[in-house]
């Protein structure tokens, strides 16, 4: 998955996540949302709402159970976006 849609999603997520975290860490696809960025469950749920609005898609939050890293989150958004 290296198409431009995926890159756009990844860029957006990194931007939004860095605004949401107090961590100084450079955010990469392998950064862990909880253990490294301390993004709590509510912040993550609200981020999903924002992404839904940005791309005009419905992203069921059930999918988040498998999400630990930025890459996994991008994969989820990409999957929803490309099947909608």
């Amino acid at each position: 998955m290296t198409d431009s849609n995926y890159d756009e999603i990844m860029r957006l997520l990194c931007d939004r996540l860095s605004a949401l975290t107090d961590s100084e860490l450079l955010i990469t696809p392998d950064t862990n949302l909880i253990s490294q960025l301390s993004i709590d469950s509510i912040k993550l749920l609200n981020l999903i709402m924002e992404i839904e609005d940005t791309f005009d898609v419905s992203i069921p939050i059930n999918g988040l159970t498998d999400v630990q890293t930025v890459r996994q989150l991008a994969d989820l958004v990409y999957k929803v976006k490309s099947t909608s």
Partner: protein
Amino acid sequence: MKLLEKLDAAAAARKALLPNGVGAFGIPIEEVYSATEARIGNRRVLLLGTNNYLGLTFAPECIRAAHEAIDKEGTGTTGSRMANGSYYGHRALEKEFAEFYKCSSGIVFTTGYQANLGTISGLVGPGDTVLIDGDSHASIYDGCILSGADIIRFKHNDMGDMEKRLRRLGDRTETTLVIAEGIYSMLGDQAPLAEIVRLKKAYNCILLLDEAHSLGVLGETGQGLVEHTGLLEEVDFITGTFSKSLCSIGGFCVSNHPQLEQLRYVSHPYIFTASPSPATIASTRAALELLRTGTHLRKQLWNNCTQLYAQLSGAGYHLGPDAGPVIAAIVDTPQQALLLWQKLLEHNIYVNLILPPAAPEGKSLVRCSVNAAHTTEQINYVGETFSKLYSLVN
């Protein structure tokens, strides 16, 4: 032991947030004196953090009914509603709830948490959708997760946001269950039910309303927000709990859809748990009658609510948008909230402390719950004490 280390990490995070505040949760209550007073440590405290909205925890009618049931039927049913746990009282209470809401059927669950789990997971499944308010109670989230349906949240009480998400769902709205609450437990605000009903009709969805905090509190006979807004007939399923205004433990769902009865055969939270004890059912039946006829209790409750809301807001506190039995002071940091909570306890007032992520928008809450048994003097004292302590959060 790796598995257990995760819990150690959670404990460390909690301690780091509030080094001295760990005792604020699960505080030991040593003795209960009445609907408004108890002993914590060696203090006699005023209780402003219970869900005892009508003040019925010591109602003689309920206590008598519970005693009689224990004497006649023993301490527990020792079995599921599906097997040996459906006594006369359970069935009678179901009928009474259905009549109270003018519905064709009602189901009693063992807790309100299970009422939401059992109803939601019985109504929707994989391939269906639930559209829920972002500030929904954990029992609603957990019921949705248990169901396997796709979970979509809308911004708390934001009808433009709800409609946007409905529109996005397209023809999936026909298999969508919308869920809202009568009064939200964090800020005490009410759902915009008329607008929710308009949207659920326009998009052809099913609507479930949890009246946990509004039962007994809103409406002429205490049905909740459905009665307060005159929209009883527009709501498909109503759930609620016995653990607040009814002062016992248990939950219910009522509906005019005949399909509700099917939940008894498919809903695990209904089937795979023991039914409420006879004493619980008996006191709940007595309390429901007091609730239905308790116009004077609601009047006293609302006098207390408006008085405390006015006092706290006059003192400068930032509160939720609606006056009601749940009055939450919204505080910027957990440390300020803990300090205020501790000082209130030093003044012999017990309230609830709510920290992020449980509190909305990263804020912390010092939350009061008012009841009908509080006297004007007690409410005054609470208002004055909050006022005196305002500098702690400003």
